[in-house]
């Protein structure tokens, strides 16, 4: 247990402790007030209750007063109790394909990590291509990004962190002072963040968005279709990130021989490539190919879970090895968010909110796209990217319908920027890991991150405006 002793005066601690019960009582009262107040014109009683639940969850997700998963479970409880949706339908929504896709992706990524394959790939690439400071930096940056194409960016950051830390120590880089120290940890964090939006696998937020989209509209976005749409953004942001980093922190070392020794030692420690590594690698490669070419036909979740079954049939992993990689909290959170999204849509609440709020001034599809992508990219700096999607997507889909926009476009407008958190350590675990190294300070992160955030929003909107029409998409 990591503990800390609060040495502030007891009266202050007591006062602060009292804030929590007062907060919950106030939240409960506001919730009851919204439920009990006269139903506004154009809104059904079920829609009014759905808005009350949505507001409650919005506050709890934003403040993180209870774990995200618990807020989601609360939503699942409230939706049938308040008569928004029948019980059977509510709990049935939890069995959404996206939830099972996320589960499968967690297990597959866990198998890759447990086998040691991801570690081996990382070490090999860094050793082979990182023979100068510039090349080593690039290889860390690109490695973090490319690995995040295939597994959760959080897992990639956690996996690469000890290797990068060892490299920084071997090079004798001084925490807080060394530019190269800042560069390699920024590369790790930003590589993961940028790479994480490239496919469905970089984080669970895109599958969540797909789940909400499917439940509310019946539409889906294919694995390959998504990646093709987003790839230019990823490439441009990687180039921009590298350019910005090397301008902000010019490389201040001349050689990386000692880092090479560390990598060679670590690689030697792994021994020769084992059968499980080969086998898990093959399963993963086949899974990705299947997602790309059979995803729309078989369903992404079915492919993911089939691969999981194969891993166990061939005894490539054991359940106890995998369990620690499965974040059940996130799975619960996503299930609840999908239920809430469907509740808002089916009760007519989403449409009503849109008409009463953003619908008044969001007159053109491109303004809708620009505003929602801006909201998503700003909100994700302060709150969970999954919460951003849960909060914004149902409303934006409603708005898209009223403007005859393709709902999948607004899904992109929220799902992609929700993953682009550059500014704060609390925005995403990859940033937190970089700051925890002590090489990157919070002010460093805000300085560089602010530029990257603005850049990312502009590039994303430009990609949507100029690239998407070329591939048959667009608003």
């Amino acid at each position, binding site marked *: *247990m990591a503990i800390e002793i609060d040495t502030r005066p007891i009266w202050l601690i007591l006062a602060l402790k009292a804030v929590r019960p007062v907060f919950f009582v106030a939240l409960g009262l506001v919730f009851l007030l919204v439920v009990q107040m006269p139903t506004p014109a154009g809104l059904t009683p079920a829609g009014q209750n759905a808005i009350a639940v949505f507001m409650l969850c919005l506050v709890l997700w934003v403040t993180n007063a209870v774990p995200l998963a618990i807020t989601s479970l609360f939503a699942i409880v409230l939706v049938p109790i308040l008569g928004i949706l029948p019980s059977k339908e509510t709990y049935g929504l939890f069995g959404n394909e996206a939830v099972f896709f996320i589960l499968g992706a967690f297990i597959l990524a866990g198998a890759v990590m447990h086998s040691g394959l991801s570690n081996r790939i990382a070490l090999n690439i860094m050793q082979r291509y990182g023979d100068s400071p510039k090349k080593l930096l690039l290889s860390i940056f690109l490695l973090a990004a490319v690995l995040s194409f295939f597994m959760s960016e959080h897992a990639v950051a956690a996996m690469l962190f000890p290797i990068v830390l060892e490299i920084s120590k071997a090079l004798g880089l001084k925490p807080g002072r060394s530019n190269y120290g800042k560069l390699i940890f920024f590369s790790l964090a930003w590589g993961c963040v940028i790479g994480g939006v490239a496919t469905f696998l970089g984080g669970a937020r895109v599958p969540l968005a797909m789940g909400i989209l499917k439940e509310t509209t019946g539409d889906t976005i294919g694995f390959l279709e998504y990646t093709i749409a987003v790839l230019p953004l990823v490439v441009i942001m990687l180039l921009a990130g590298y350019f910005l980093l090397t301008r902000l922190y010019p490389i201040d070392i001349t050689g990386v021989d000692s880092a090479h020794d560390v990598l060679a030692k670590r690689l030697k420690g792994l021994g020769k490539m084992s059968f499980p590594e080969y086998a898990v690698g093959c399963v993963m490669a086949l899974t990705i190919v299947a997602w790309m070419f059979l995803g729309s036909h078989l369903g992404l979740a079915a492919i993911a879970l089939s691969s999981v079954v194969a891993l166990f049939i061939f005894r490539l992993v054991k359940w106890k090895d995998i369990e620690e990689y499965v974040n059940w909290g996130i799975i619960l959170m996503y299930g609840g968010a999908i239920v809430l999204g469907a509740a808002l849509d089916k009760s007519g609440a989403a449409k009503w909110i849109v008409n009463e709020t953003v619908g008044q001034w969001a007159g053109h599809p491109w303004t809708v796209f620009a505003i929602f992508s801006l909201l998503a990219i700003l909100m994700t700096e302060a709150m969970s990217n999954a919460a951003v999607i849960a909060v914004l997507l149902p409303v934006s889909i409603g708005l898209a319908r009223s403007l005859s926009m393709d709902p999948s476009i607004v899904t992109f407008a929220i799902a992609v920027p929700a993953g682009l958190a550059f500014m704060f350590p609390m925005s995403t675990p990859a940033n937190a890991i970089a700051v925890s190294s002590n090489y990157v300070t919070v002010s460093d992160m805000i300085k560089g991150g602010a530029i990257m955030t603005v850049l990312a929003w502009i590039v994303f909107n430009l990609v949507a405006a100029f690239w998407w029409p070329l591939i048959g998409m667009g608003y």
Partner: protein
Amino acid sequence: MGKYLDNPAALKIDLMLRGIRMEDPVVKAWACGCSGVDILLPQDTLVNIPCREEFTKGSPYLIKRRGERYFITDGKNEVPVKLVQRPAFYGKRTATGVPFSEIASVHGSYTVVTPSKRCDFFNRSIECKYCAGNFNVDGASDRVYSVDEVTETVEAVLKEGASRIIYLSIGFSPGDDGGIEFLRPYITAIKKNFNCLVAVEALPPKENRWIDETYALGADSVLYNLEIFDKELFEIICPGRAAQIGRKRYMEALEYAAKIFPNGTVASHLIVGLEPPGSTCMGIDCLTDMGVVPVLPIYRPSSEKDLSISPLTTEIIIPVYKHLYKAVTKKKVNLNWVRDLSMVTTPAEIRGLVDESRGGLMESFYKSKIGMKTAWGLSSLRRKLRVVDKDPDPSSEH
């Protein structure tokens, strides 16, 4: 009246310094196997008087019995005293057959529980020079009592009402944690099973996070015993403490602990008689400045070695105790925690030497049964408020 017989605080100091002679068989039986005999002086002043050491043979004091009553006499005058009842649990054993008296001994309001008598200083021949019989610590040969054995002992202590504060004491063990990792299961088990206060006497850990951990685990009081304030004498008399921990770290750890634990619950022993009184007074000032309670045991020379300064008389050391009382009151250090100890004269007892008052209402309250329960409740509440779990909740991750 004799020189000190009319003042219990002064008499306690004089008795601890000079010891007592015994002629009554009941008292002799009480003291059998113990380093001293526990006597209650007037004004409920508890004292453990040396009676077996060589130096006690020349003591002017004699304990004698008249009818059912006991008296201490200096040959001319006498004062009525009470023989403290020997705890009944001393005669009982754990389920595994270990006598409870081997694991625990009552010292007034505290019961000292020693889960392990090992001290690695002995194995490295850097033990404290005075440490022949303080807590009977030894090298690696002694056994370690299990959590169940210690819990059973504590249950016996509390059931009998022998005391409400359990004082866990250990010797030096290599490692950064000062012995807290070793004590963790004992503290956890005691706190889980009983509503009692727990004091921990350990070595200062290398990092302050272990002090946080000690408090979070359930320790209500902590003691890092510096023993000697004088830098050179500290290195000579306590070579292990000086080499393995260092005087500077003692000071840092005490200062930090005083910020974490409640006022008056962080204490440090300064042994009177092993360094000049002026040096002890400087130590008192230094510790009280940090909010630490200096506890001043009097050195008891053994038959093999006598390290005491000379001359060491009550006249010389009473001013040191008076200085202690003035220092703790000036720095507003709470006196309700360190009190009623038989082995040392506490600051609260010295009040009688300085202004002859009997202590306030709060002091009497905290001595009562309900007062002890209140202290336990407040201490638990304080910990609940102050300890913050920093473990991230994985379900809150982005």
